[in-house]
Structure formats: structure tokens, C-alpha cells
């Protein structure tokens, strides 16, 4: 298990990370979320052992992370960059050698990966001759080439078109199946919602919300329903069980009191209106994110 305990990182006059703790379990995607400047990058860099924490500890299988962990970590930084004037193959071999892979093994794996991501024909091309999407693919390969146990992905989908995004998503899912430790840092809440089973929300260096995604959603669910109907629904706005009522063109959003079960509510109105649609609305991660961040920023 990858465990971060009481991590603090102070710079001269700012505390970038203020006493956060979390643990990442194998075979699951851990979402590290937060607005710009929240402390995500600093957290990632301490986990990568690029910078040393002011205090706190990061352990992997009960051992403090150190230099020997360089070779089992794969990292895809948010801002992408490769040696533009060098050949795709050379760059990949170089990065693989830095992860202690020998040239021969690396070469075989590079072939496999380039084929898998349909860019084998660029093997001997210079990086600058590739399209942006294909450069991103090369970068992605460089992060996973040495088959790392821990994979840290910072905005892995930015710069990809929807088809490639799908391809990368499937790849990441396959890593989940093979039991890797995956930390995914992103702003895209829809992505996090689809992929992460556990999230950690950070703002101004502090934890603001964390836990299993389903559990968090339950915690923030506010008994909302979406209602499609024909007829006059004005009476709902004065109904005592309704906390909040929003009427749109074809449907309405209704927030019920916490003790009212949506199914009972449906039973009671089904005679008065012609219901065309009825669903219980879960709060989106996006909404939770905005609400929580706004609240903690106050």
C-alpha cells in the first residue's frame, strides 16, 4: 500500500501542503483533485521523491520511499515535453534506460507499445514531426514502458481527441485490472467521476473531502429528483415536503426534505399530473467540487 502520512511541505512564505494523509490501494484509481495551486503538484512531487517534505512520511509497503523507488514509478507530468529534435525510438530508449531497463528489453517493449497505440510507423521519425496527439502517445509510453508498480498520471487526457481519449482510458483500466497503484490528478470532474473509485479533494494545501466516490456522493446527495410531466404543477411549490422547486420548459427539479422517500413522493403526485419522466438525481462530482471548494475558501 502506498501511504502518505501527515505530509507537510513549506516553502519560504507559503505552506504548499498542510498536513494531509491518504492511502492508495492497488487495483483502484485514486483521484487527486483540486483547483489550480491547491498543492496537487507538490504532493505528487513529494510522492515521486523529487522534493523532500518538510515533515511527514510517504511509505510504500511499509518502507519509506527513497531512490530505489525511482524504477518502479511511472510519471506522466501535466505539461508534456519530449526532446523535439530526437528520434522517437531514441527518446524512449533513453527514458527506459533511466528506469534501469537495458536497451534490448526496452527496444522490444517499445515495438509492442508503438504497435498497441498505432504509431509504429513513427518509430524512426523525429518527435517534432509527429502530431500533438501522437507526441502525447509517445509521452504516455515513456511513463509506462518499464511496467511501473505505481503510476502517477497528471491530466492524462489533455491534448487527446475523443477517440484517443477512449483508447487511453481503456489502457488505464487495463492497468487497474493488473493491480497497479494509480494516482490520477485532474481538473476534469467527469473523467474523475467515471474512473476513480476513491478521491481526495485538496484546496489551499488542505484536505477538504476524501473517501470512496459512492460514499461521498451519498454524503452530498440532497434528495433531488428530476420530473418530466404534463399538466399544471404549480401546487408543488407550496408542498411542505418540497424544499426547493425549479421549473424549466419541459421538466422540473425538485429538492425534497431529507426524510421524504422519492418513491412515496411519486405515489402521491402520480394522480395529479401525467408523469413522463422520473429520476433520482445524484449530485455530480463537478457540483460537489464547486460546492466544497467554495465552502472551504470562505
Amino acid at each position, binding site marked *: 500500500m502506498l501511504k502518505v502520512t501527515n505530509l507537510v511541505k513549506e516553502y*519560504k512564505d507559503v505552506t504548499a501542503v498542510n498536513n494531509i494523509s491518504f492511502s492508495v490501494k492497488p487495483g483502484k484509481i485514486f483521484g487527486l483533485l483540486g483547483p489550480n495551486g491547491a498543492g496537487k503538484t507538490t504532493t505528487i*512531487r513529494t510522492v*515521486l*521523491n*523529487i*522534493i*523532500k517534505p518538510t515533515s511527514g512520511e510517504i511509505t510504500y509497503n511499509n518502507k519509506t520511499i527513497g*531512490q530505489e523507488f*525511482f*524504477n518502479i*514509478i511511472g*510519471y506522466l*507530468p501535466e*505539461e*508534456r*515535453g*519530449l*526532446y*523535439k*529534435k*530526437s528520434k522517437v525510438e*531514441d527518446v524512449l530508449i*533513453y*527514458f527506459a*534506460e*533511466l*528506469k*534501469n531497463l537495458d536497451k534490448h528489453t526496452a527496444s522490444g517493449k517499445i515495438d509492442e507499445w508503438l504497435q498497441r497505440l498505432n504509431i509504429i510507423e513513427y518509430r524512426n521519425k523525429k518527435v517534432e514531426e509527429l502530431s500533438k496527439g501522437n507526441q502525447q502517445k509517445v509521452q504516455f509510453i*515513456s*511513463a509506462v514502458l518499464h511496467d511501473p508498480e505505481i503510476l502517477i498520471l497528471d491530466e492524462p487526457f489533455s491534448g487527446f481527441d475523443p477517440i484517443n481519449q477512449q483508447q487511453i482510458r481503456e489502457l488505464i483500466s487495463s492497468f487497474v485490472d493488473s493491480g497497479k497503484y494509480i494516482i490520477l490528478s485532474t481538473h476534469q470532474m467527469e473523467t474523475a467521476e467515471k474512473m476513480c473509485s476513491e478521491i481526495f479533494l485538496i484546496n489551499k494545501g488542505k484536505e477538504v473531502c476524501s473517501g470512496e466516490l459512492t460514499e461521498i456522493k451519498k454524503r452530498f446527495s440532497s434528495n433531488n429528483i428530476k420530473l418530466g410531466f404534463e399538466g399544471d404543477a404549480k401546487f408543488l411549490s407550496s408542498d411542505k415536503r418540497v424544499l426547493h422547486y425549479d421549473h424549466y420548459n419541459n421538466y422540473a427539479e425538485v429538492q425534497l426534505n431529507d426524510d421524504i422517500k422519492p418513491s412515496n413522493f411519486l405515489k402521491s403526485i402520480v394522480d395529479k399530473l401525467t408523469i413522463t419522466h422520473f429520476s433520482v438525481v445524484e449530485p455530480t462530482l463537478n457540483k460537489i467540487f464547486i460546492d466544497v471548494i467554495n465552502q472551504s475558501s470562505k
Partner: protein
Amino acid sequence: MNKTLAIAKWEYLEKVKTKAFIISLIITPAIIILFSVVPTLLVSKEDNTTRMIGFLDKSGMYFNDLNTEISKHTLDNGQPLYVLVNLDQKELSEDEIKTKTDEATFKGKYDSFIYIKYGGTDSITIELRSKGIANFRDIGRFSDAFETVRISHRIQQDAIDPDIVEFFMRGVKINQIKIEEGGKEGKANFETVFFSSFIFILLLMMMVIYSGQMLVRSLLEEKSNRIIEILVSSCNPNELLAGKVFGLSALGLTQILIWMMIGIALAGSAVIPMEAFKNILPMLVYFILGFIFFTTLFVGIGSIVSTEQEAQQITSYLSIIMVIPVVIVFPAMQNPDSSLIKVLSYIPITTPSVMLLRLNIAPVPLWEIAATLGLLIVSTLITIKFSAKIFRIGILAYGKMPNIRELKSWLREK
């Protein structure tokens, strides 16, 4: 260590293949050749036509002898270089002839016009009148010729023994002989000392500046496209620093070796006296240590830049630091025993250059070699330590360059 080697290999191979490297390999010697050969060609090229020189001397004392003397100068094809035309005409006055010849010279009939004015019996002024400014070689030849003619006239007049004249004319020459161990006479002279020391000092400077710039540039590229994050998540900063220093040093060495080979091929090994390599072993030690010292200094300071402009600023400051020893060493050659030179031997940035020079001028006591080397090694180690610390933080810092206070706090960071 494996990773250091991988980094060194990458830096070397990727840079050696670049156009910039190949161009600098060719352009630099080409510029040196251009500056050293072309002016010589231009000057010597002037002597391929015979020059018409008008000659006016109302006394008639000089024409014949001077004509004999100056006709010693010939063109490559054996034709005379100068043809003197005696312009004296009994019926015209000196001023009339002068005015006429000036006009003719201006129109191009004569290349120049020599006019002798008498101020008294032995005092004469000679004017070389021409349309443009006269060639300094012409003036030199004529003034030599006049000198000779004038002296020989006086010898004849006073019937002086020519041997005595020759005795007066001969200068005294002092031969410099360096005494070496076992009472042997060394062959060291100014040129040997100059070549052996100065070539090394210059090579050191060029190599450091070249590799230093490459280093700063490669760091800047990696910083600006964030490759640095991948690198430092794969190896520790010290390995990265060492790899870069090794790789780019090898690159600088390659370049210098190729230039030396070009130089030797073009000019023959005669240019560099073999004497220059007598002290090669201690010289190499100073050279290599000096190189490592300066390169690590470059890396540490170079890691704090994040834009092209800053990189240029920093590299030019560092290049100036590199030039200081060269500037100091030139005057130092005049007086190698001065206490200033002794002091400079113990200041790390001048130690390599000054010691490279001292080793060739006079035997340096062993204890001094040991002391300066020790000091250089210690300061190199300190530089490596400091640079590594600055490097570790500098490579991840963006934006404004840190000021001295911030740098100090970086050094304190664990």
C-alpha cells in the same frame, strides 16, 4: 552510476549529431584561418607591379647610389620593384619641377614622388609625395636605403675603416638559456613558454565556455518543456548533474581534439614545439581539475535560468569570469616571480591558468604544486556540493531568477 552513464551518453550522442555542433566545428577554425591568413595575403599581394617613383634632388648627391640600393628589391619575376626617374632639369627651378611632378603624380604618371629638401650640409628632409597614403613597406625600404647611402657617403668622405663601421652597427644579442635539473641546458625560450602555457590556457577557456553554454542550453530546454520532471523522477539530481558534466565535457574534448588535428594537419606539428609537452602530466591534472571546477560552477548557476535571455546573460557573465585569468596571465609572463603570481596560484578561479604558466617558466616547488592542487580539489568539491544544491532546486524553479538571499536559503535547504 548506470544512470549517470546513460545521461552522459545521451547528452554526448544527441549533441554530437546536431547541425550546431558540426557548424561550430567547421566555422570556428575557418574564422581563425580567415583572420590569420587573409591579412597576410592582402599585404604580400601588393608587391606584384613595378612602381614608378619620381625623384628630385637638386644636389644630385643621392640619385645614383640610391638607385643602386633600391634596385635590390625585385618582383618575383626578377623585374625591379621600383624604377627611379631622375626629374632634375638644369633649366627649371626646384619649385617649378615640384609643382609639375605633383600634378603628374596626382594624374597617376608616378606612383610616388621623392623630394629632397636641403636644410644645411648634412641635414635633409625627404618627402614621399603620393596621391594616397604611401604603403608603410615602401617607406621602410626607402628610409633603409637612404640610411645606407648616407652612411657610406660619410665613410668614403672621411676614409673610415668599413670594419669599424660594421662594429658600431652590430647590436648585442642576449641568448636565454634555462638551466634544468642536472645542469642541463633547456631550450625554453619565449615562444615555447608562450605556446605550451598559452595554448593550454586558451583551450581550457574555450572548452569551458563551449561546454558551459551547451550545459545551460540543454538544461534550459529540459526545463522549458518539463522533461526535467521526468528526469528527476528517474534519477537523483546528483546523477543528472554528473551525467551532464561528463557528457558535455566529452563533447568539448571531441571538439578540441578535432581542432588540434585540423591545426596539425594544416600547419604541421612544427608549430607546437615538443618542449610544450614536457610537463604534460601535471599540466593535464591542472587542466582537468580546472575544467571540472568551472563546469560545475556553470551547471549550478545555469540551473536557475528559465528563459533564453537569462541564459544569455548568465553565460556571458560566466564567460567574463573565464577570460579574467587569461587577461591576468599575459602581464604575469613578464614577471613570473612576482608575489602577485604566487597569490593568484592560490585563488581557485586563477589557479589552473597561473599554474599552467608557472610550470613552464620555472620549476615549481613540489609543496606548492601539492598545496595549489589540494586547494583546487577542495574548492572543486565545495563547488560541486553547492552547485548540486542549487541545481536540485533550480531545475524545478520557474519564473524570476532567484536573488542572493533566496539562493542562500536554497543552500540551507536539506
